[in-house]
């Protein structure tokens, strides 16, 4: 179903995202069976095709380099609202008709918005690729944004915000945390948008957004499946080639100023268990061939939380049992600044302060003693294995290409990832821990659970260990 939304830390628990982050570590040079080809249309649209002939299906994704980071105050959430409106019809296609035609062809379609990009996709039998291209090309330049359709859809988006964020205590904490970690950079704003902005948004805001960013030059078309690249390029010419090129607006450089001291934030919400999140500023990948720090940070996160026996789970959940769950995450790919995050839920009788102290202790141990070659080798073994596993999913292969391309890298840079990750040394892991996991760039966010009936809980009997 279309109209989903994703953001790096915006939805659900970070823990749930970790498998994705972990598997995003890895990629190898495409083998002969999985050649990747590239083509550019005169109007600027880039087309990338990766062959995968295991099943007679295809996934087609269009990535627009426009996400919530490109929004302005007062209209936060408009990137995502436009994503919803992209299913509401063009000159030739009635509202709702897009998904209906894809469904009639046996396909699935959907879309998602993040801080950096907005992506639309279809999965279908390979013979139906022309339909996907025809419809996708049509709405790249022929969208009709009517007040009537907008007025209903904005209600849907507000329901989505209630469901995704407002009624989920940990989502509220993560949203408040991002708004604290970043003081100036637009990553501080939630992808779904602030409720107040949604309430005051008009169809004209969505139309302005569409006119500003939806143009072939700002898009990448990624196709993975049982297809022949030349035929796909011809098909792309046929459907997307007639779209007129349009100049893109200037993108302002937005740099987050250096943080100069620890920040703390607390959120109250109806819940039973407290929750803790700790975020450090960290670099994002900028030069895939020559950077080394982002790769070292990925390995650091792998050592701390890359598998069931990794440090955080072993030390905090199994040994000291200060946490009932814990995790770490770092995403090196993004147009904006990077961030490394820890999170966890304290065990019964332990407080968020206990958990924070325990997490900081683990960080200090790595800064002081480094990591072992054996631990690093274990993370690398998983990297090597998951490069095979990911080939079981065409969709995921397309996602990786799209992520790279829409963030300004060539998909060919993916070929270097494995070698770069394998080259990381224990000393480099220790070095990035010392450099980036420092208090001055730390934000700590906590959930203070509130009773459902709004009344204070009865005081606990003395003698029971309960510090939260």
């Amino acid at each position: 179903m279309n109209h989903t939304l994703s953001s790096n830390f915006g939805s659900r628990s970070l823990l749930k995202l970790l498998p994705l982050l972990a598997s995003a570590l890895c990629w190898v040079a495409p083998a002969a069976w999985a050649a990747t080809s590239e083509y550019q249309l005169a109007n600027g649209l880039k087309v990338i095709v990766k062959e995968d002939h295991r099943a007679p299906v295809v996934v087609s994704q269009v990535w627009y380099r426009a996400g919530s980071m490109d929004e302005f105050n007062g209209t936060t959430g408009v990137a995502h609202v436009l994503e919803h409106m992209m299913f509401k019809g063009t000159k030739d296609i009635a509202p709702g008709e897009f998904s209906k035609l894809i469904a009639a062809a046996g396909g699935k379609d959907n879309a998602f918005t993040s801080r950096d990009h907005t992506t639309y996709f279809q999965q279908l039998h390979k013979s139906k690729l022309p339909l996907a291209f025809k419809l996708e090309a049509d709405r790249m330049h022929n969208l009709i944004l009517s007040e009537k359709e907008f007025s209903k859809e904005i209600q849907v988006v507000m329901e989505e915000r209630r469901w995704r964020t407002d009624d989920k205590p940990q989502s509220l904490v993560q949203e408040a945390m991002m708004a604290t970690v970043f003081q100036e950079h637009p990553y501080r704003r939630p992808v779904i948008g602030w409720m107040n902005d949604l309430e005051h948004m008009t169809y004209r805001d969505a139309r302005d957004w569409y006119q500003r960013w939806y143009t072939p030059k700002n898009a990448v078309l990624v196709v993975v499946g049982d297809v022949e690249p030349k035929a796909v390029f011809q098909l792309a010419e046929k459907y997307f080639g007639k779209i007129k090129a349009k100049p893109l607006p200037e993108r302002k450089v937005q740099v987050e100023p250096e943080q100069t001291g620890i920040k703390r934030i607390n959120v109250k919400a109806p819940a039973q268990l407290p929750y803790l999140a700790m975020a450090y500023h960290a670099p994002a990948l900028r030069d895939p061939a020559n950077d080394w720090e982002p790769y070292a940070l990925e390995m650091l996160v792998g050592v701390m939380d890359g598998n069931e026996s990794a440090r955080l789970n072993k030390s905090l959940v199994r040994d000291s049992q200060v946490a009932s769950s814990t995790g770490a995450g770092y995403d090196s790919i993004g147009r904006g600044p990077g961030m490394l995050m820890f999170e966890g839920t304290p065990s019964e009788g332990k407080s968020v302060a206990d958990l924070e102290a325990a997490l900081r202790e683990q960080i200090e141990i790595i800064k002081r003693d480094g990591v072992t070659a054996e631990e690093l080798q274990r993370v690398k073994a998983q990297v090597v294995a998951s490069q095979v596993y990911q080939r079981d999913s065409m969709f995921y292969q397309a996602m990786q290409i799209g992520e790279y391309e829409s963030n300004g890298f060539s998909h060919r840079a993916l070929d270097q990832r494995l070698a770069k990750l394998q080259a990381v040394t224990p000393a480099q892991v220790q070095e990035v821990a010392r450099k980036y996991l420092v208090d001055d760039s730390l934000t700590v966010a906590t959930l203070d659970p509130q009773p459902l009936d709004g009344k204070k809980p009865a005081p606990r009997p003395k003698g029971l260990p309960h510090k939260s």
Partner: protein
Amino acid sequence: MMKVVLKSFKAAAKSTGRGARLWKKMLGTGCLALGLVSLPAHAILPIQHWQTATGAQVYFVENHDLPMLDVSVEFPAGSSRDTAAKSGLANMTKGLLDLGAAGLSDNEIATRLADVGANLGGRFELDRAGVSLRTLSSARERGQALDMMAKVLQQPDFPDSVLQREKARTIAALKEAETQPESIADKAFSKMLYGSHPYGLQGGGEIATVSALTRQDLVDFYRDHYNAEHAVVSLMGDLTRTEAAAIAEQLTAKLPKAQSAPAPLPAVEYPVAPQTRAIPHPATQSHILLGYPGMVRGDRDFFPLYVGNYILGGGGFDSRLTKEVREKRGLAYSTYSYFAPMQQLGPFQIGLQTKKEQSEQALTLVRKTLQDFIAKGPTDKELTQAKNNIIGGFPLRIDSNRKILEYLGVIGYYRLPLTYLDDFVNNVNKVTAAQIRDAFARRVRPDRMVTVVVGAQEGAPAASK
């Protein structure tokens, strides 16, 4: 992903099995067009099936496209094997399998798996529980990963210290669940729908029953439910038949011997009157669930109900619920319906979330949509659209090793015919509007459904019909 996708996907997966090729390319475009579907001359998915020496059922699809292997071993050891007094035992037993085995600690097991890049996972549902593994097929990696899986399955230690720790974690999660509207609604729904039937038990158990679990409980449950005679072994990937046979033996030879056949689950009783519960919650949205006992695996009404449900609430934007509730009125982000076929009647469920102030309006609309559908059935246009999607989308059901493994597990556990997938398209194609109308009228009774509204609208009758 949004919930409706997960729900409807889950329903679709459960209703059909999720299979794969990596299959022979026989569904050409011609076959995909309605009316041109014909029975394939060769099986779409060549499933090999045999028994191990100890009686485990093995299902294997050989495919060498990728140098990897997926394998699962599943038992009738899901939450329906619990009793009310020891609710949560089945889940705890399954959870502790890989937290100590053959003298290795939880960390040692995890380390040895991680060293070869293997992923150990599992399944825990109403009927089934089991362990799954994904590993590279190269000798060293495969050998070490399967050695761990064999130990976890056949020599679990159930260390008491680990049990105490996991009990505390489970209890914390159960307490948290008691405060979150989605889980409050799910729990109330299954209790109301199933009463004292084991399908009404919570998978994770209750705080009191989990607190009381002992190591001996786990040892006994394991001995009684993880038997080779009742195991289903599924293998998919880069193996020869000979290798697959050896692995199936390795994973099951030392399982405890069954003392008897698994006790048959009691039949589910249909409700005789409507039940409605409004549960207060401070959330901004009401979480609404409606349901009725649905269908079994291999149900004679399976295809009419499955195709019909696509039209009612399983087919995303093609479905009436999404059109009425979301598209026409903007009342919800997600609304869906699904059947989850089980050994006994699994749930039929409709769900949505909407802001509290309009929950009565949304509930009335959902009821009306369901009643209209049951009274009149689908239009020909809707039926054609549903078939086009399900039949045309068939290749997507079996386009990865992971999906094929899932499909093998369903076929094996529920003893569906090996030709299930070969017959699927024809069976969908044969469904008529009259059959759907007839099946829904017999199988879904709107006047006897259970309704849960968590975060009900204040002062409203919360679901007056």
